[in-house]
């Protein structure tokens, strides 16, 4: 009798797990929609501040005073930066004049960087520019909140553009550290190393433009600061119908190598009936399976239990015959 109850609980667990997983997926897609809207709103705000070149003002280009407690520190830091220019009479008025390394590589005195920008070179696969779009990308720790188990993220994990479109990226770093918007796999005859790269210490914005090739493809976008991509700062740009998905994008594509998870015996407020607690624990363990590996292990475990339960039954059949 006890065994039958166990199996019923286990089956109930599987059911609960499935519904839970579906619910999560729905959550994600609705959240992404929300993010899309806020992105577009900000977009319009930003146009005045950031064009194709970097604002050379030392003050934060983005006003996040309300959101960032670190702003005081930041402000002070920049005061000292000002004194730098005063003492050494270095003119940062025209960034292009002083920090224009070559056409491909623009950097200001704070390390704000645009690399591999392409304003006018048409890819060979394009007759003309199909459309001009502006996309605002936000980067920061807070965007990782919706992806448990990550530490940094972009506000969106995927962008769609038409083949041959000219895309201007407004990259808003909302943290007080460096972040990058680095795109790989672009045609090397147009982009050095096939790369387009924006980098900025936040809170601040940097903008850059590329012209995407004429064929359907999917490009990796990430931040290359050690373990930012591994811990969530990863996305993809889908051109046209896109190509092969990039793996391990939070909430979008599965990880190639997954971690092992197990339920911990954490202290919790105790329930009234002990019977109920036991049942809840079991369901909890089942629903906590969040990666495919563990789900498989769960199923294996269940089948093993079923098998164990069935062994005595099988044994009984020949026994009865012999008794007869």
């Amino acid at each position: 009798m006890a065994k039958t109850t166990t199996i019923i609980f286990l089956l109930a667990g599987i059911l609960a797990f499935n519904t839970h997983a579906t619910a999560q997926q729905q959550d994600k897609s609705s959240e992404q929609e929300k993010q899309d809207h806020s992105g577009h709103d900000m977009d319009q705000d930003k146009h005045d501040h950031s064009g194709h070149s970097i604002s050379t003002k030392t003050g934060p280009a983005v006003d996040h005073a309300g959101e960032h407690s670190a702003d005081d520190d930041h402000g002070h830091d920049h005061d000292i930066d000002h004194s730098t220019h005063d003492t050494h009479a270095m003119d940062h008025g025209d960034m292009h004049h002083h920090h224009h390394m070559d056409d491909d590589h623009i950097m200001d005195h704070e390390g704000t960087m645009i690399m591999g920008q392409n304003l006018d070179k048409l890819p060979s696969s394009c007759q003309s520019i199909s459309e001009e779009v502006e996309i605002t990308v936000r980067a920061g720790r807070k965007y990782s909140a919706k992806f448990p188990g990550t530490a940094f993220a972009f506000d969106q994990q995927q962008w769609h553009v038409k083949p041959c479109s000219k895309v201007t990226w407004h990259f808003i770093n909302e943290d007080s550290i460096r972040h990058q918007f680095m795109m790989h796999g672009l045609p090397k005859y147009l982009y050095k190393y096939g790369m387009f790269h924006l980098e900025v210490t936040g809170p601040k914005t940097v903008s850059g433009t590329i012209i995407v090739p004429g064929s359907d493809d999917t490009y990796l976008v990430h931040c290359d600061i050690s373990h930012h991509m591994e811990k969530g700062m990863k996305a993809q740009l889908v051109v046209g119908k896109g190509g092969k998905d990039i793996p391990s994008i939070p909430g979008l594509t599965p990880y190639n190598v997954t971690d092992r998870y197990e339920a911990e015996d954490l202290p919790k407020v105790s329930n009234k009936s002990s019977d109920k607690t036991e049942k809840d624990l079991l369901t909890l363990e089942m629903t906590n399976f969040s990666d495919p590996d563990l789900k498989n292990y769960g199923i294996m475990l269940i089948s093993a239990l079923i098998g164990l339960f069935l062994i005595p039954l099988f044994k009984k059949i020949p026994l009865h015959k012999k008794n007869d």
Partner: protein
Amino acid sequence: MPVHIFFSLLTFCMMSAAVTAQASLKLPETVKVDPAALTGEPMCDPIISAAWREAQEIDGVKIEASPGCSPDNPAWIAAAVKGTNNISMDTLMKTGLSPDAIIKTDDLDGDGDPDRIIIKLEIMELNGKTPDFPGVLPTFDIAPGIQPGAWVFAPKMSGMSTENFESIRANPLLRLPSPVIRVEVGDIVQIVLENTHYFPHSIHLHGVDHPFSHGEHGGQDGVPQTSEVELMPGERRIYQFQARQPGTMFYHCHVQTHTHLAMGLAGMIIVEENRPNNWLQTLNIGAGHVRHPSVAVREQFDQEYDLHYHAMDKQLGEIIQKHNDPRLIARDMNRRYDITDSTEDYFTLNGLSFPYTLRESLIIVEPDQKIKLRLLNSGGEQIAVHTHGHHATITHYDGVEHNPMAQIMRDVFDIAPAQRLDLKLETVNDGKHSYGEGDWLIHDHREKGITTDGMAEGGSMSSIVYTSYLGKDGMPKVSHFGIDLNKYFTKEYFERRLPIWQDLDEWASLGSPGERTGLDTATQNLLLNVLYGLLAGLLIYLIFSRWGQIKQSATAAIARLKSPKGSNQ
């Protein structure tokens, strides 16, 4: 009883006897590892340009010669001396540093050097897990193939974390140990920590004169239980101080110190005496030879070396290679890892273990020199550094000068965890200061200090090498003694797959024995027992199945025996 059974029994016995005799005649042959089967690497890293070793001047910064195999990038030194805000764009591009990594301004006391110093540090992971492929990145080898998971304070950089986008090897700026910081007494110093890591961290300025709390920046002792909350990922914090006392000091993370310090978040910080025109090398990336020493050091010494000793537990580093999810790493590090059950496995000098210590941590000397050595032990246990061929004088303990009349000379220097020693090494060949020229080992005399994961040769050992014993490539010249260091520059050596004495004689008398071609005694016995068992079984079976026959023949035999008797009666 059938005759053929007896025959077969006989055959088995003879066969087994033959096998036993043959096997014990000869032991297995020696299998010698062919050097061609090893993934060797050049002793001196070819990535580094030989021109870096020469004395030179960049952007007006004089840089001393450094004849070792892997000297510091001279552009790093120029940037560290002038500040990334005062060097040419060309030099800056050769450093990989962010243009705001080291900002030097304002000669407040009018003595010809800048007195406002801003140093920006990031926190980087080395050899951590990735969800994209089985393996770690960005990779940093402390010895061939040895890649412990680690964290470091790194100078604020620009661009990629790897050498280039086709490599998973760490950018040269991202390395163990955390960089040595040099500031002057009276400088208004801001260390800006930009937490680029996924865990909370802090900076504690051990031994450096710093206010407990700063009006603008709040508490700044780095301790989450006393002065400030943990600095979260993505946040920055400024630690500001104006030191009144010089000395060799220590900085480290004070969040979960028992793991964060051992992971590598620890470095030397040196406060130099205030002198006119004292442009300091603010960062000594990778520690070791100081190629632009301070005015005060140049007054008294011919050379200066920063020697940072560290130790790491393999199991601790493996936590960041086992999990990618920061919550799992936090769980294992904060709640499952038990430091009281841990052992240190990797012993490093300036972030590397032997043989890589030979590449960049040789103390290269000439006769009759005075050399300043600054030693820090950031490991968890006391170390005992022995200088072969030399007695050195202890001039400072923990940054404070020892009474000059009472200073002592030793050849073993015990250094407690977090402790610093300043030594004066004099290469005067008088039988006490020095026994003369040579390639003299300098090593931690706890014997595990010369091992890597418990196997010698490894650990933090390096050498005090006289230039007469230095090869052109900057490696110690020992081949005329018949010594070949090449085997240490292979992964297989540290995988414990290379019998270390196989090349000591022609026939590899202490090489690896091959597999036994015959049967070893244990297997023989086993097989024989199986055989006997089978035979016994067969016998029993025969007895049972032919019980009737046996009984019959037995009765017949007895009858035959009896009948003559009976007839006799």
